[in-house]
């Protein structure tokens, strides 16, 4: 086995252990939450006009998917099913497979969050370099200030502001849902999906941009003070080559954060999805917690865990490619 193969195998094994540990932790954690799935629905049925007896009978029927076995046995069954790729059946969806529900919501988290992440990373990194290089100028100061300000503004404030301006007041962009057209691979549908994603993507990008800018600026300033830059300048390298040297070295710390962000995006962005009524994984997770849908909660947490671990492994492996020092 080559060195790369051994490294990959080791990381995969470690990843599996971490997935098991997190799956175990979340399994017991979600079941430790007070309340049970039937309680909330019982109350809803009462409010809908059912008698207590009817409401209880309906809860028994609809929430029959809630396991009443002892926890260790439930845990054993969960791991056994998980090993076979089965995430279980949702209680709040009366037995619909959790994988199906998550699969339905997944694209509507990946599309806006991934787009927002890429946009914010590209703009943030470029602005960070400028802010660092021109840190003594007015433009550098303004860029840094913009990063600090947007990084400090709460998500819901930015989301509500964009919603108010671009939807409610100016009627420029749509709000709610994912498209105005029936799904299909045609231009109107894809165009409408893009239109609907603009506000969530902009919100995410705007909020993340500040973090990337400040991190990149700090990293560039650190690299600017390195001896090898001074030596290179003394050798008379061109400004473009100098910028490449700085960029390649300064971006390394951000690369790990970017990889982890790719993993974390599967958790969705609850505030953004909620404000723009965008039906992604964040909204789904919120509903699962509210209804105490243990299997759905476990499934969603597991997806986030696996994604973060996979992204981490990928980042580690890619790091060896982009940073020769790690290969030594």
């Amino acid at each position, binding site marked *: 086995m080559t060195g790369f193969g051994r490294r990959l195998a080791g990381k995969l094994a470690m990843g599996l252990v971490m997935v098991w540990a997190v799956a175990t932790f979340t399994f017991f954690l979600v079941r430790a*939450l*007070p*309340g*049970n*799935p039937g*309680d*909330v629905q019982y*109350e809803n049925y*009462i*409010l809908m*006009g059912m*008698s*207590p*007896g*009817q409401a*209880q*009978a*309906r*809860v*028994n*029927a*609809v929430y*029959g998917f809630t396991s009443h076995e002892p926890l260790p046995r439930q845990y054993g069954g969960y791991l056994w099913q998980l090993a076979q790729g089965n995430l279980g*059946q949702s209680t*709040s*969806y*009366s*037995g*619909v497979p959790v994988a*199906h*529900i*998550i*699969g*339905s*919501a997944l694209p509507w988290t990946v599309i806006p969050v991934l787009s927002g992440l890429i946009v914010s990373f590209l703009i943030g990194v470029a602005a960070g370099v400028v802010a660092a290089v021109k840190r003594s100028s007015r433009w550098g100061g303004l860029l840094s200030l913009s990063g600090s300000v947007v990084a400090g503004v709460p998500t819901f404030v930015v989301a509500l502001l964009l*919603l108010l301006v671009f*939807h*409610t007041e100016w009627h420029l962009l749509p*709000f*709610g*849902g*994912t*498209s*105005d*057209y*029936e799904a299909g691979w*045609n*231009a*109107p*549908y894809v*165009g409408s999906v*893009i239109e609907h994603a603009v506000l969530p993507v902009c919100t995410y990008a705007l909020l993340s941009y500040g973090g990337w800018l400040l991190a990149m600026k700090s990293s560039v300033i650190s690299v600017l003070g390195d001896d090898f830059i001074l030596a290179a300048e003394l050798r008379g390298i061109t400004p473009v080559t100098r910028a490449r040297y700085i960029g390649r070295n300064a971006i390394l710390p951000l690369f790990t954060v970017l990889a982890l962000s790719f993993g974390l995006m599967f958790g969705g962005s609850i505030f953004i999805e*909620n*404000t723009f*009524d*965008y*039906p992604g994984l964040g909204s789904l997770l919120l*509903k699962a*917690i*509210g209804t105490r849908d243990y299997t759905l909660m476990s499934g969603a947490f597991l997806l986030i865990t696996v994604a973060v671990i996979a992204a981490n492994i990928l980042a580690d492996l890619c790091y060896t490619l982009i940073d020769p020092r790690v290969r030594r």
Partner: protein
Amino acid sequence: MSRPKTLVAAVAAAVALTASSACSGSAKKINGGGSDGNVYTSIDANNPITAGAPMNPFNASPNTFLGYDQMQLGFDKKNPADPNDFFPGLAASWTATDTGLTVQLQPNAKWSDGTPVTLADIKTSVAVAYTQGLAGPSAATANPSAGSLEVSGVKDLGGGKIEFDEQPGVKNLYFTRLALSLTIVSDKVYGSQVPADVWTTIAAAQGPDANAAKAAITKLTTEGKALAAFAPAKDVSAGPFVIDHIDPGSAVMNRNPYFYDVKKIAPKQVVVRHFTGNEQIWSYMKAGELDSAPFTAMPTNVLNQVLGAGYTRMDSVSFVGASIAFNEKVAPFDKTAVRQALAYVIDRDAVTKVGEPVGGVPNAATTGLIKAQSDTFLSADQSAALNPYKPDPAKAAALLQSAGFKKDSSGQWHLPDGSAWKITLQAVNGFSDWISASAVIANELTGFGIPTTAAVTTDFATYKKEMGAGKYAFGWWLVALGPQTDKAYNRLYGSDDGFVYTNGQITHNDSGWEHTPETYAVNGQTVATGPLTAQLSVTPVADQKPIIAQLAAATNQELPVIQIWDYTRVQFTLNKRFTNFPKTGDEALLANPPGVWMMQGYVQNK
């Protein structure tokens, strides 16, 4: 291609796609909203769109919509004087008989595939109801006197007449309303999901052999699980609309050309939009995108914005009230004088103005019912005799002093044992009206000399669990859930208060969290609240007045809860694309979803 050129090309492609979405005619636009007057856009408050959920009304998160594609034999008018008063649905008319109910189906009742609604559909629907806890002994076991839909058979009398036979020996006052409220599904779609021997199992569940009945109920419930998860490939509806498709943000329904009264249905399409909370509904309304919208608790400034967007407000009675409940096991709330004193301190007008300024009316007098309902049952003299507990600090102070409380020099009240009296008022996260109102009440009580903290529980599941465990002594609670009076009083003197049914008899134990006494002494009479509540469920509405007079007087005197406001059902309509909406005062219509308005000839193209 160089990198900048690639980037430019990608941006150009995205812009072109976006632009083409506005001008292409080849794709089917679903969320018509602004431009197509024939598309009716709304929100189902009880049923947000849930991505991945089946088009199955029996699922806990169903993607079907009452009054549009989900049909019943009739639709409840929520008439407090007649619980069996319904709008026609798939049943054109009905007659209650000594042995059950005879229903005349609509002459042209058809499914969206063009086939007629038949006895097989009704029979399958009843069988499904048994597997879902919506009918049968499983419900009756829990509370026999409350009754459940006990159908022993469904027969075709010919000419579209269907007979529902009530189980011999059972006489349920609400048999008609329960039968008319059944969700009717297609036998072609759901028949295969119901076991062939289901009626044998139902008969066993209704039989005299207790063990066999129990086994049959378990069997029905087990069979119901698969049915609740069943995902039909397409919607087959007998309602005015049929689901075209569901996407994560909306359900799109086309007018059903086979609907029995299709000439009355003006919109060619209905779009029911997804929402996750009140704010989304407000945003849709501020932008004028909804043709009608359900009530959501909203502050006055939002109401003004909504009205400013062109919406018309329609108010109707909502049979539910907000109250503060006591755990009487916790001193000093076990003392009637203390509860009465608190009622005199809380200014319900002021609290409602902040907590529920749009959808609430300050409660007139705590009776266990909302005012609109208590006025139906109580005489003018009886209503006048109720104590309204108008804010009166002097009376509150006198009551506390009579109970042994003392006020110190700083104005703070002390318990009879001399210790300082502090109160925590519990509300639930997400219930914005309760939280806002808690702050006002806490201020009022603190100002009176009882330091009060407003606390919030993380969510309702936790609240319910902890309330049941006796963790809260003073917290918010919904009461007066009508229009059926037995249900309203069950909220106060039911299982939460330790009244349980054992072998058909009502008994009182310590299992609830309210811990009120088993009986009250009111005007020299003993009022047994639990048994009287149970009695309501087997007493015709016309004969309920004496029972309600006792329960209302007892509740008003003893205050197991302090009712703060009666909710008002506020709805909004936009007369921009459609006209002829119901108006304030059309109580029966406004108690139903817009699909029912349309069935009655309302909502026409503008």
